[in-house]
C-alpha cells in the first residue's frame, strides 16, 4: 500500500498522534496513582498527599501482601478457575456460534435457538434460585460453581457468530464441495480465519473470569476457596464504622490501610495486563493470513 503524505494528511497524523497520546495519558493516570499509593507510607496516603509519585517511598505494603497466604491461595483458585473456565467458554462459544451463523434457510431452528440464548441475557431468576440449582447439581463449594453457570457467554457467542457470517461464503461452499462436513469446515476453515475474533473473545472471557467476585463469595463455603477478586473484595470494601463494635477496637487501626489495598489491586490486575499484549498480536493479523488469496 502506498502512502501519500499530503499536507492535510500530515496535519491529520500529527493531530492524531497528539490526541491519542492525550487519551492514553488520561487512561493511564489512575493506575499510576494506585501504583504510587501502593509505594507510599500509609500516613501520607491517608492524608491524600500521594498524587502520581510515591510519598515517603516504602515497600512495606508489598511486604505485607507477600506475607499474606490468603492472597496467594486465592490466586491459585483463580488460576484453576480461569484454566477450566476459558476452555469451557471458548469451546461452547465456538460450538454455538457456528450453527447460529448459518442462514435460516439452511438451519431453520437457528432463530429459535438464538432467542433462547438471548433471553438469558435479559432475564435471570436471581441469586436464591440459582443457589438452589447449584446446590441441587452438587457443585456448591467447587470450582465448577464458578464455571458452569456462566459457561455460555451469550454476548461473545453473538460477536463470534457475526464474525463467522462475515467470512467469505465461497470458502465454505468450496469445502462442502470437497466433501467436508460441518465439523471439518468449522475446524479447518472457520477457526483459522477468525483469529482476531477469537483473540477478542478469549480476552473478554479471561477478563470476565478474572474479575468476577460475587459468585465466589456466595457459592464457596470457605474463604480458602475464594478466587482472587472475591478475596480482594473482602479487603477493599469500605467498612461501616457506625457498626464497629467496641470489641473490634484494634481492627480500627487497620481500617484504612490504603497502601496495602492499592498494592493488592495492582497485583490483582497485573496478570491480565501482562496477557493482554500477547493476545493483541492476534488482533493485528487479519484476513491477510490466508483465505481468498490461496
Amino acid at each position: 500500500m502506498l502512502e501519500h503524505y499530503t499536507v492535510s494528511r500530515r496535519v491529520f497524523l500529527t493531530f492524531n498522534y497528539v490526541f491519542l497520546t492525550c487519551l492514553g495519558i488520561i487512561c493511564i493516570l489512575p493506575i499510576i496513582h494506585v501504583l504510587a499509593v501502593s509505594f507510599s507510607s500509609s500516613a501520607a496516603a491517608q492524608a491524600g498527599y500521594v498524587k502520581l509519585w510515591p510519598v515517603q517511598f516504602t515497600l512495606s505494603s508489598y511486604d505485607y501482601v507477600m506475607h499474606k497466604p490468603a492472597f496467594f491461595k486465592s490466586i491459585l483458585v483463580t488460576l484453576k478457575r480461569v484454566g477450566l473456565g476459558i476452555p469451557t467458554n471458548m469451546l461452547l462459544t465456538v460450538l454455538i456460534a457456528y450453527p447460529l451463523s448459518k442462514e435460516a434457510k439452511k438451519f431453520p431452528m437457528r432463530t429459535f435457538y438464538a432467542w433462547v440464548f438471548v433471553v438469558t441475557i435479559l432475564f435471570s431468576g436471581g441469586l436464591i434460585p440459582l443457589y438452589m440449582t447449584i446446590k441441587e447439581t452438587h457443585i456448591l463449594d467447587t470450582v465448577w460453581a464458578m464455571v458452569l453457570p456462566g459457561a455460555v457467554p451469550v454476548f461473545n457467542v453473538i460477536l463470534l457468530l457475526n464474525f463467522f457470517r462475515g467470512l467469505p461464503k465461497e470458502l465454505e461452499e468450496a469445502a462442502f464441495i470437497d466433501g467436508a462436513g460441518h465439523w471439518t469446515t468449522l475446524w479447518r476453515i472457520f477457526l483459522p480465519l477468525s483469529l482476531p475474533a477469537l483473540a477478542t473473545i478469549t480476552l473478554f472471557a479471561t477478563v470476565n473470569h478474572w474479575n468476577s467476585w460475587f459468585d465466589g463469595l456466595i457459592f464457596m463455603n470457605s474463604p480458602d476457596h475464594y478466587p482472587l477478586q472475591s478475596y480482594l473484595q473482602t479487603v477493599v470494601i469500605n467498612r461501616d464504622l457506625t457498626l464497629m463494635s467496641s470489641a473490634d477496637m484494634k481492627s480500627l487501626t487497620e481500617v484504612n490501610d490504603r497502601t496495602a489495598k492499592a498494592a493488592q489491586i495492582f497485583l490483582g490486575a497485573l496478570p491480565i495486563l501482562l496477557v493482554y499484549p500477547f493476545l493483541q498480536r492476534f488482533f493485528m493479523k487479519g484476513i491477510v493470513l490466508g483465505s481468498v488469496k490461496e
Partner: protein
Amino acid sequence: MFLKKWSGQLPLHLMILPGLVLILIYSYGPMFGLLIAFEKYVPAKGIMGSKWVGLDNFRYVLEMPESTQIIWNTILIAMMKIVAGLIAPIITALLLNEVRKEVFKRGIQTVVYLPHFLSWIILGGILIDILSPTNGIVNQVLGWFGIKAIYFLGDNHWFRYVLVITDVWKEFGFNTIVYLAALTSISPTLYEAAIVDGAGRWKQTLHVTLPGMTSIIVLLVTLSLGNVLNAGFDQVFNLYSPQVYETGDVIDTFVYRIGLVDAQYGVATAVGVFRSVVSLFSISLSYYLAYRFANYRIF
C-alpha cells in the same frame, strides 16, 4: 429427501446441545425465582410458601412519589451512555487504524483498556479529587481559560454529564477492541480497489472502513439497547450524594435502598422483571427493524 436434509443438520443440533443443556439448567431453571416479583417474599417461607400479592409490588413502585423522577433519570443517563459509549470507541478505533507505528498503536490500545480494571470505589475517590472545584486539576485547567470553577459532582446541571463521561472513559477501551477486530477482517482488496478509484484516506474511511463495520455497529447498538433502564449501580452509588439525588437517583440505587435497607425482595425483583421486559421489547424492536429494513439478522 427430508431425512437427508435433517441428517445434514444433525451436526448443527449436536453442536448446540451441550450449551443448550447448561443454559436450561443454570439460566432457565432458576427463572422460577421471578415469581418473587408477584409475592410478598419472606426468605424463611421460601418462594412457594410466601404470600401471593399479584401486581402489588409493581403498583408500589409506580405509586412511589419519586418514581417518575427516578425512571426519567435512569432513561436519560442510560441513553446518553449508550450513545456516547457507541461513538467514542468507533472514533478511537478509526484513529488507531490510521496509526502506522505498531508500538504506538499497541501501547495506546493497552492503555485505554486500563480504567476498566479499577473499581468505582477507587475511581470515586480519585474523581472527587480531580473534579474538586477548589483544587481539582480539571477546574484549574478551566481556570486558565477564564471559566469559573464548576462543582461537577455537587451540581444538578452537571452531575449526569459527569456520570456519562466518566463511564465512557472507563469502558470505551472494551468496545474499541471489538471494532479493531472488525477492522482487521475488512479485506485489503477493497482498499486497493478504492485507491485505484482515486479515493483518499477520508473517502476510504467513508466508503470502505465504515461500511465494513456496519454490521458490528448495528449489533452492538442492538445489544446495548438492553441497557435502556440500566444506569450503572456501582458508579452512581459511589459518586452521588444527597444534593444531586434530584438528577442522579436512578432505579438501581432505589432498588438498593429498598432491597438492602428494607429487605423488600418482592419489590426489588419486580423492578428487575420490569426492566427485563422493557429491555426485551427494545431489543426485539431493533432486531425486527434491522431485519425488516436491512434484511439483516443481528443474531
